[in-house]
């Protein structure tokens, strides 16, 4: 069946937060990365089995700005308020890239609420041997090639030439990301606490990721007890846009114990 998201806004601490929802069932929340350019329609197959919820972070997409958010932990606390507003207690959580960093941070402090966790090419660790590409210094003309192994994911998403409004909306999202990531795109204290991720956890990564090298999956696997791994051959950083297999793997992992 053809699905689509419905969008609604919830007011949290004076900021209008945009929430995309589709489907029914157990709540499955996806934390997006440091940009909303390609949209989230590729995730819609998850709505066949779950109540799929994709909130836009403050300063991104259709959500308002919140200049008081300056650390990944601020964002994690923001989501406690968002989930209260949505009356969500227990949930499964998927985080991609910066959203993976956020999901891990949220789950460390709320491990009892997170039923199953998927970290998809997560940001957040400092791995000197395989360092994360600095998102802020990639030249504009090389950005798409860094983000995706399959450039067709940007078809129809980028005006040519870019309009001022398009550039300004990208600048706005880069600003919101910079508030959290400019000083460092990782938390040196994160390894100290990842043992708290005791819920079933899947690490999933494209092996052609040019933003966060796939070798970092080993470091995560060492730090997160019992985490499963899944590698996607030839897939880049925007794995859910690029690979239906990535989305199917999430559905399978999160739905494993469901009797629906």
């Amino acid at each position, binding site marked *: 069946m053809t699905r689509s998201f419905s969008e609604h806004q919830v007011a949290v601490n004076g900021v209008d937060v945009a929430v995309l929802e589709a489907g029914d069932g157990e709540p499955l929340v996806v934390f997006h990365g440091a940009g909303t350019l390609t949209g989230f329609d590729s995730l819609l197959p998850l709505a066949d089995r779950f109540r799929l919820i994709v909130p836009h972070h403050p300063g991104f997409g259709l959500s308002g700005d919140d200049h008081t958010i300056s650390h990944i932990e601020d964002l994690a606390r923001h989501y406690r308020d968002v989930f209260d507003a949505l009356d969500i207690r227990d949930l499964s959580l998927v985080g991609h890239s910066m959203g993976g960093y956020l999901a891990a941070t949220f789950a460390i402090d709320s491990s009892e609420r997170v039923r199953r966790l998927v970290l998809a090419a997560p940001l957040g660790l400092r791995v000197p041997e395989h360092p994360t590409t600095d998102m802020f210094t990639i030249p504009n003309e090389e950005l798409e090639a860094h983000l995706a192994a399959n450039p067709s994911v940007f078809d129809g998403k980028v005006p040519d030439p870019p309009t001022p409004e398009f550039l300004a909306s990208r600048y706005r999202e*880069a600003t919101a990301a910079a508030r959290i990531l400019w000083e460092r795109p990782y938390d040196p204290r994160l390894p100290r606490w990842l043992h708290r991720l005791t819920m079933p956890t899947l690490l999933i990564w494209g092996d052609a990721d040019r933003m966060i090298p796939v070798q970092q999956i080993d470091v995560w696997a060492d730090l997160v007890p019992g985490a499963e791994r899944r590698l996607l051959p030839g897939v880049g950083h925007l794995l859910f846009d690029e690979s239906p297999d990535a989305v199917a793997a999430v559905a399978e992992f999160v739905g494993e114990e469901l009797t629906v």
Partner: protein
Amino acid sequence: MAGSSVFDDIQFYLLNHHHYVDIPPEADDYDSVWVDLPNALFDPERGHELYQRFARELRLAEALGFDAIALNEHHSTQYSLMPATSVRAGYMVAQTERIKLMVAGVPINLSWPSRVAEEYAMLDVMSGGRMEFGFPLGTGMEYWSNAGQLNPATARARFREGLEVIKQAWTLPGPSRYDGEFFNYRYLNTFPRPFQKPHPKMYMVGAGSEETVRLAVEFEAGYSVIFVPIRQQLEAFALFRRLTEEAGRTPRPEDLAITNIVYVADTDAEAVHEAKPHIERFFSWFHRVPAKYLLPPGYVTFDEFLRRASSAALADGTRATWDDMTAIARIACGSPETVADLLAHWAEDAQTSRVIVTLSIGDMPEWKAVKNMTLFAHEVIPRIRARGAGPAAPAAEPMAAARR
């Protein structure tokens, strides 16, 4: 002219950018002269020669009777050999006796505000009270060139706190305490304190934004503006005067400064012929910087970014033609009469008595810079001073000394 005018106490500040003047033969290969220009292009021996050359020009400024020397700071660029402008200012304090020095200045976000307060107090005491200070936020490029700990998205809030710390360090008896979002001082206790009372003249250095004008008025500082179109400068100055009056003070001509590129020769045609290639390269090479470096994330608001992205002139400033530049910017090239008339008009129009002039610019050779400075001091300054009630004599050394 009846009554008091901006010309009664008009003062001329010689700004020398300290460019690393040698444009590489393969210049077209580089998209940027800032942030990522390979520093292999820097030859230390050539750098040493240039520091000596610019010191000669600045000493000449004193001998010729200029009122002040102005120095600025930029990082990781051939535009400037002064990434630590206080170091250069300390050197020039020792090389001069009378002339004022304006350091405009350390972007305080790149340092600790207490340390800036200390360095500047040292300069003021060492120079016997000859210092003035300009406080820039720092261009977007400085935020790329310096530590990642300096977040452009919080730069303005941090800058404001830095200013508070400096002003407190200079005006409150120490030790004092400061509890901020970015800075926390248990014993703020600047030693030495500045020579001048209550502290050296402060200017905010802006690019025409309302925010910086408001900051200047709030901190009771002057306001100066870098290269933005004249119309925009005048709007900012008008706002400064209005806000100053609203704050219950009277705006003074010395609280505003205009920055000008000037070249003087015997005739208008000769001046343009001699200066134009260097001024064009000042914009096409030394100002070459991609939009990405000008505007790191969060350095300006969404609305301001959209305004700039929508303005073709601003988006492609380094490719402006000579006619475009001279139409919107303060570029005065001509005979002494032409230049004096233009600068006098600009000063009057802006209601300012502080005229900053750049006379050595781009890849201009020393002989042209010296000729330009000499003609400016002998033929232009007296013509402008003559319009006021102050000393109308030529700004040559004896009179300059007598003024002090």
